[in-house]
Every structure is written in C-alpha cells, then in structure tokens.
C-alpha cells in the first residue's frame, strides 16, 4: 500500500514559487487501478514523480507498506525504482541507441542475475505487449503507441509491484490508446500489479477502480 501525508511540492523559479502540490494526504489500495485526473497544471505529473521516487517533495512523507521512503538516499531510491516500481513517462522515453529488446532488458541487467534470462524475459514481455515481431527495432523505427508499449515492457522487466503511468496515451490515437490501456489492465488482472495512471480524458474513468481529482495541487471531490 502506498500513502502520502501532508505532501507539498514547491517549485522555485527564481523568486517565483509554484505550489504544485499542497498538503496532500491520500492512500492507494494495493492491487488496484487508480486514475489521477485534473486540469493541465493541476499537479498530476508532480504527484506521480513524487510517488515514483523520481523527485523529492518539499515537505510531507511518502510511505510504501507503512515504511517512510521520503528521505532515502539516492542510491536506495534508485534501487527502489529498479526493483519495486515501474514508471511510464508521458513523453516517449526509450533510449535511442538501443533496440526495443535492449531497452527492455537493460534494467534487468542492472538488477543482476544472468543476462541471458533477462533477454529471454524481455522477448516474452515484448510479445505480451504485442511487439513480438519488432524486438530488434530502434525506437525511431516504431510508432508512438509501439514505443509506449516497449516502455511498458521495460517497466515490467523486474516484476514491479507498482506501475506508474503518466498520461501513457497522451501522444497516441484512440486505437493505440485502447491497446495501451488494455495492456495495463491486463497486467493488473493477471499479475496483480498496482496501477496508478494519470489522464485528463474523462473517458478514462472507466478503466479505474478509484479516481483522484486534483485541482491546484489539492485533492477535490469532483472533477470540474
């Protein structure tokens, strides 16, 4: 289970302060699918980055299974990201010099064990996201939706317990979006992975078991 208490994130741009998250407290059930919604600039990505341990909050705490992970060292956070969390970025975020296959097994190599096993598993994961035929393509040879599915496969290589997806379909057409969303739901159903995804499309409510609305960095009852 993931929870945050009194989470505040303030970006300082010179003398201007942007309060992206304000005193936010909430808890997410393990094994669920949660959708974070809100207008542009409401703090959705900021929230996800704090939860994904990619950034540090200005104040407040983040708990994984009751354990405070807010003040972990950079090394320990990297380890957490590697083993416990998967993160899918709003923008396509594959490594351009590597093939789809290599992109997927790289985090496996980092974790250790036999590279051969990771390579095999990467092939399976790519097949699972429907890219079994495209594993030796470089990102620039793949469509946006395909890239996003490679990113999903990469996020899964180390069997994460939680998958964060920041508008995984923002740059995709309706059909690709549906494929990506169905892939995520399948992961939740079959592997029990906790999914937290961001969207500003009200239609996406249907995928989620739970909705969190953000407005000006605060949780609100209804999406307006």
């Amino acid at each position, binding site marked *: 289970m993931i929870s945050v208490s009194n989470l505040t994130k303030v970006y300082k741009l010179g003398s201007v302060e942007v309060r992206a998250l304000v005193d936010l407290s909430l808890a997410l059930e393990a094994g669920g699918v949660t959708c974070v919604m809100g207008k542009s600039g409401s703090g959705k990505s900021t929230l996800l980055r704090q939860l994904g341990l990619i*950034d540090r909050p200005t104040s407040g705490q983040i708990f994984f299974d009751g354990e405070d992970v807010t003040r972990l060292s950079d090394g320990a956070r990297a380890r957490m990201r*590697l083993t416990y969390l998967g993160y899918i*970025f709003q923008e396509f975020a*594959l490594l351009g010099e590597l093939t789809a296959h290599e992109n997927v097994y790289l*985090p496996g190599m*980092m974790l*250790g064990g036999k*590279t051969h096993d990771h390579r095999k598993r990467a092939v399976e994961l790519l097949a699972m996201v429907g890219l079994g035929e495209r594993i030796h393509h470089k990102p620039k040879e793949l469509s946006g939706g395909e890239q996003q599915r490679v990113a999903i496969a990469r996020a899964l290589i*180390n069997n994460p317990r939680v998958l964060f997806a920041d508008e995984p379909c923002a740059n995709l057409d309706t059909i690709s979006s549906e494929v990506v969303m169905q892939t995520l739901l399948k992961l939740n159903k079959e592997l029990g992975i906790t999914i937290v995804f961001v969207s500003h499309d009200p239609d996406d409510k249907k995928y989620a078991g739970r909705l969190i609305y953000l407005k000006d960095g605060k949780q609100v009852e209804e999406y307006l």
Partner: protein
Amino acid sequence: MNSLKVAAFLAFKSLTRGDWRVLLLTISMLILVYLNLVFTPALLAGAVQNINNKTRTTMSADLLFQATGESPVLFQAQELVDAIENVDGVAAVCARNNLGAEIHYESETFATGVYAIDPEKDDQVFQIHEAVIEGEPLEPGDVGQILLGAQVAGAEREDLELYASSLKTVHAGSTVVIDYVNGVEREYTVKGIFFTEFVQSDIRAYITEDDLHTMVPPQLHDTATSIYVKLEKGVDRSQVVNEVLAMRSGLKYQTWEDALGVLKSMTKSFDQIIVILRVTALIVAAITIFIVTYVDLVNKRRQIGIERAIGITSSSIVASYILRAIIYAAFGILAAALIFRYIVVPIEAQHPFHFPFGDVMLAVDVPELVSSAFILCGVAIASAFVPAYQTIRTKIIDAIWSS
C-alpha cells in the same frame, strides 16, 4: 559488478551505434597525442644517446686518469698502462700526450690539440680509426704523418659546421705545417681525415708516439697527459677507479659523464623540454576527451535522466563514460604505437635528423612507451569523469523535463 556490466553495455552500444565520425576523430586525436608523447622524447633520447656514445668512443673513453699537481704529465706511463690492463673489468687501455699546436695550411691557421697516440692500443679504446673518410688511419711507426679531424681539414666540405674557421681545402696527401707550443715547427703529410660527426672530436688532430719521440729527448719518451680506460660491460666502475688510484699517488680521474662538459647542460635541457612537451600533449588529450564527453552528455541529458529514472545507477552511467574514454585511449595508443614502430621509426632511420653530433635515430624505450600509455589512459579517465560526474549530480527531473 552489475554496475560495471551495465556500464560496459552502454559504452559499447553508444560506441558502435553513435556517430562513427566522432569516434574516428577522437581516436585520431589520441593517436596524435600519443605520437607527440613518444616522438620528441625518443628523438631527444636518441640525441642524448648519441652524444654519450660519441663522447665515449671518440673522446673520453669510459674513464680517464691524469696527473694531479703542477705538471700535467704522468711519467712511467707504460708501466701504469700495463698495470691498469690487468685490473678486472678493464677491456683496453691507452696513453696519449696532448700537445698544444697551431696547424697552418696556405693562409689558414687552426689552433687545436694534437694528440700523440700509440695507434695499436688507441684503436682498441677509441673508434676514430673507423671514421676515416679520406686516406688511411695512423699506424705504428708513422713519422711525419698526421691524421686530421674533418673540422680541422675542411676537405672542401662547405656544409661542415666549422668550415669557415677550418683549413678549408686540406685533403689526404696535403702538406701542413705545425707549430707546437714548445716552439718546434714541423711539416706533416696528411695521412688521413676522420669524420666522427661529433664536432668536439672532429676538431682534433693525431700523430703517432713514434713521431713525438723524434721531437723530445729520450727521458720524455715514457710520458702521458692522460690514460684512457675502456671498461667491459656491466663492470663496477668505482671498483676499477679505486684500484687504479691505489697504484700510484698523484692520480686523478674523470668519468665520461664528467667529460661531457658543456653537453651536460644540453642533455639536462633536453629532459626539461621533454617534460614540457609531454605536459602539453597530455593537456591536449585531456581537453579532447573532456569535449567529446561533455558534448555527448549535453546531447544525452534527457536520456541519462531516463536511465536514472528507471533505476540505472549513477555510477554505471559515469563508468560507461570512463570506459568509453579508456577505449578511445586504448585504440589511440595501439594505433599510434603501430604507426610509430612500423612507420615513423623506419622512415626516420632512412631520413635521419642531423645534429652536430651526427645523425640521430629515434631511441625507442619500451618502459617509457608503456608508462606514457598509462599516463594517457589516466588523463583520459579523469577527463571523462569530471563532466560525467557533474552531469549525474543534477536532479533527474531537471535532466528529463527541462530544456
């Protein structure tokens, strides 16, 4: 361990899939740097070797003994020569008398040392007889015959360093007149001209002991101004010195290093020049690697942010840049070493650089090459580490989400 594996993976992929022109240019730069690191030092080392070698084989031998005190002359020279010959580690010994003289030919005059030698013994210690370019070397019994250095004779070789002050047109067979400092004046036939390509040696002239004996009273027949000793290889020089000094009082000695004289400061300057050139070459290498790494880091700023976001450790990322630098350096060094050994050295040997102490060959010192290679690698590592380390210290979100 995993970090290193990932680092090697990332380094290898970016080298093989990155811009090969950058790779080629970087390695070319390092080739030039390494050649710079080894070429001039090898040349100057070759020069120093040459100077040392010429000094020993044409001027000072390994050791020379002289009389202390007022008179520069050693008496009972033969007895001393025989005794020194019997010392362990001595390869050959000879005695010489140095006579100050002026040599005249037509309107030209050359003031120099004329050495009276025993050709048989002298040729075992020195290599002057091998450097005769005109006529013949001296032989025992030659009277009225003189062997002149090329810088004395001139021999119509206008490219000689001291041609202007030489006798200019003297050849083997010419007749010269010698005024010795003791007032004796004699005519000599030039038996030969030698050219050791070592200016300091080529300004000398040699006559035989037998000739000297015709000019001095019998009680002065067994003298020497210096006794020269050639040692066997690897002999403890101080041991020999001590044994000889114990034979007779009133002896002092000089090593060939002492005899280098002005050249000593030159070889010292060479060493300093080598240091300056090396430091410059290493700075060029450092800047090259730094720029290449830095540009790559700037281009991959977002990628590196993503790598870190998905859990690749910062140390892997830094290590991948260090590995790349090592690979640049390794290939540069390897290629440069091959170029140096199989192209530069042979070409230089065919078209050597000419110095006042002869043609200089590149002296290839393998430990020196190896240590230069390691130093270059070290510099490459440091120059990759600094920008890489600075980059991974920025926040991940700044790397990914700021332009």
